[in-house]
């Protein structure tokens, strides 16, 4: 079982921040990637036009999803791929299980797939006696540590190499104190190579599904999806409904954007196209809804389905960098996770749209131009309307709105010992207010600007008369 997380983002972030040196390191590692992304994007003169094009293609996709999915299915079948439809996580997991069971297989190698994390496939299969090994190095490390990924592209970015060395020492029998990344990677590779050779079933995620041809593209830097898939008798791909691109030529937009946005690389090392099963191989593709059509119905939030899971919004987000991905207690963390999660469970994720200063950097780096920070603002309105805001917050806001609605009340309050000091959430001057834990407030001036202005104007009038 994975570690239980019940605290909200602010609590988990506070715990993460206690080790300040670690936060600085985490922040620096992600900022380094943000800077790499900046350099890579600035080498392409048409970068902003590419983002615009990608956004437009995805608008077309989510507006015509029904037709594209049917076209994709038709071509998959033509290519000899077995197609499955799953409305939710449970159905998805059952399908994977039934495929393996039919073949009498009890082992699976899986490359990176946030969808299967979302569906908790590993746990589901484990309970039914099927062993799953994650073959992406970062996910492999997270699996060994029995912890979910903290970042969709860099699953163990919150772990330092010494901690990974310690994990390898405990679980893989490496020498104690070994923390050299190259040596650790070699050890993992040796273990994984053995996994690839012995597994008969491989599952991959899908980065792009081409409706026109029925092929799908899987992008990795490690070639782990390929090794699993090429050595398997049964190849399974799981994809969310929104992963469609209409035509093969559109990959020319998305593949250029994806790696540059994700890590600052010009392209992922492997961008593999899968189209037909090899002779004797069985190829399955599972199309998963899991709340996506529900999001599609929300006009303010449907654009979140354009996401190509590059992780750029996480790398640029100062809140993410200082609080760590696990503080979002959701498979997809960071700004994009905060606009996707409330669709799935609003009560559980009511805190996430508030885990942002609305600075807007996420929207600027997004390769498909999702207005992430505007959606965060809009989710806050929905969460309040649906009754998921805390009662104390609601009362405070009502008092504030009442005071601001009346100039007389406001002025009296301002004069009467600075109404502000008693009512505005961040300045309430008592020991319970978190503002004062690590910050001071400016000393209240003798008079407010309004008082000064009124006095000055009176003086002027008197001079004139």
């Amino acid at each position, binding site marked *: 079982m994975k570690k239980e997380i019940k605290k909200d983002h602010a609590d988990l972030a506070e715990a993460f921040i206690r080790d300040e040196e670690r936060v600085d390191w985490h922040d620096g590692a992600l900022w380094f990637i943000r800077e790499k992304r900046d350099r890579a994007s600035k080498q392409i003169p048409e970068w902003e036009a590419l983002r615009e094009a990608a956004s437009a293609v995805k608008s077309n996709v989510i507006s015509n999803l029904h037709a594209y999915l049917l076209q994709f299915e038709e071509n998959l079948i033509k290519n000899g791929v077995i197609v499955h439809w799953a409305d939710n996580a449970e159905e998805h997991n059952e399908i994977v299980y039934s495929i393996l069971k039919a073949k009498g297989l009890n082992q699976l190698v899986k490359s990176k797939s946030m969808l299967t994390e979302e569906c908790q496939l590993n746990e589901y299969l484990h309970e039914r006696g099927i062993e799953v090994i994650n073959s992406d190095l970062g996910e492999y490390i997270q699996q060994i540590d029995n912890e979910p990924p903290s970042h969709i592209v860099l699953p163990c970015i919150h772990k330092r190499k010494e901690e990974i060395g310690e994990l390898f020492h405990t679980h893989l029998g490496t020498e104690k104190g070994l923390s050299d990344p190259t040596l650790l990677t070699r050890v993992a590779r040796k273990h994984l190579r053995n996994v690839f050779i012995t597994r008969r079933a491989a599952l991959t995620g899908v980065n792009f599904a081409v409706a026109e041809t029925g092929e799908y593209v899987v992008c990795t830097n490690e070639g782990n999806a390929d090794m699993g898939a090429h050595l398997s008798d049964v190849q399974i791909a799981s994809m969310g409904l929104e992963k469609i691109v209409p035509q093969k030529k559109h990959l020319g937009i998305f593949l250029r954007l994806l790696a540059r946005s994700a890590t600052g690389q010009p392209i992922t090392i492997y961008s593999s196209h899968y189209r037909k099963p090899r002779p004797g191989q069985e190829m399955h593709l599972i199309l998963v809804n899991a709340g996506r059509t529900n999001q599609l119905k929300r006009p303010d939030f449907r654009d979140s389905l354009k996401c190509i899971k590059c992780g750029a919004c996480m790398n640029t987000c100062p809140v993410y960098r200082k609080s760590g991905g696990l503080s979002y207690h959701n498979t997809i963390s960071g700004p994009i996770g905060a606009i996707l999660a409330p669709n799935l469970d609003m009560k559980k994720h009511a805190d996430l749209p508030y885990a942002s200063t609305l600075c807007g950097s996420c929207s600027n780096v997004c390769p498909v131009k999702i207005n992430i920070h505007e959606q965060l603002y809009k989710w806050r309105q929905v969460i309040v309307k649906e009754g998921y805001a805390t009662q104390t917050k609601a009362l405070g806001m009502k008092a504030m709105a009442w005071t601001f609605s009346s100039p007389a009340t406001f002025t009296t309050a301002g004069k009467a010992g600075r109404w502000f000091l008693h009512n505005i959430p961040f300045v309430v001057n008592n020991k319970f207010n978190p503002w004062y*834990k690590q910050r001071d407030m400016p000393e209240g001036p003798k008079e*407010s600007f309004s008082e000064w202005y009124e006095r000055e104007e009176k003086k002027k009038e008197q001079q004139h008369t």
Partner: protein
Amino acid sequence: MTVGLFIPCYVNQFYPDAAKATLQLLRKLGVNVAYPLKQTCCGQPMANSGFENLTQPCDDLFIENFSSFDYIVAPSASCVLHIKDHLHSPQNAEGANKIRKGIYELVEFLTDVLKIEKLDAVFPHKVGLHHSCHGLRGLHLSQMSELNAPPFSKPQQLLSMVRELEQVSLDRADECCGFGGTFCVAEEAVSVKMGKDRVTDHTKNGAEYITSSDLSCLMHLQGILHRNKSAVKVIHIAEILNAGL
């Protein structure tokens, strides 16, 4: 041309000097400015917390106070952005529209409407410029570092007109300070860490003053500087542009 001066609630209460500097600066530049005394707040603290439904009285009052002016100017990018994006009135759509179009943050009013090319200001100090996110990514006062687009900066353009002022360059030119309205208390730990890191960027690059077109960011940074007994001060950009005139 008549300009209505909008002084955000917390500036009125805590930073009257910045408000005075804004008024004096505009008057010295020949602008006919009036300050409607019945103003309160733009409604942003409620709206950003998800309580947009409570802001109608604020919106109505704002329209009542400011509808007679050609322009509305405020020394706060954040409040201006809120009005531009969210002020509405089901009863008076035209009035609301006029307000949204006529409101300017001080810096952009100076560069885009008055188009000033020189200032008689002196500020013999090293100054770090903090871009507020609402000014930067909302009002587009400067080019945003994330985009592949030509650089410009309206506040830097104005600061470069001030004699003896030295602008310090920062390691992270436009990162958020972590204030974020109620975020600063709801997510206290993250907010303070973000603020500390912004402060460090300014201090290690030699700033004596941190300036901005938003006092909300500056109040947060000042709170951290003061608690840590730093000699570095915060100052609103209006006070620099009005200095030594």
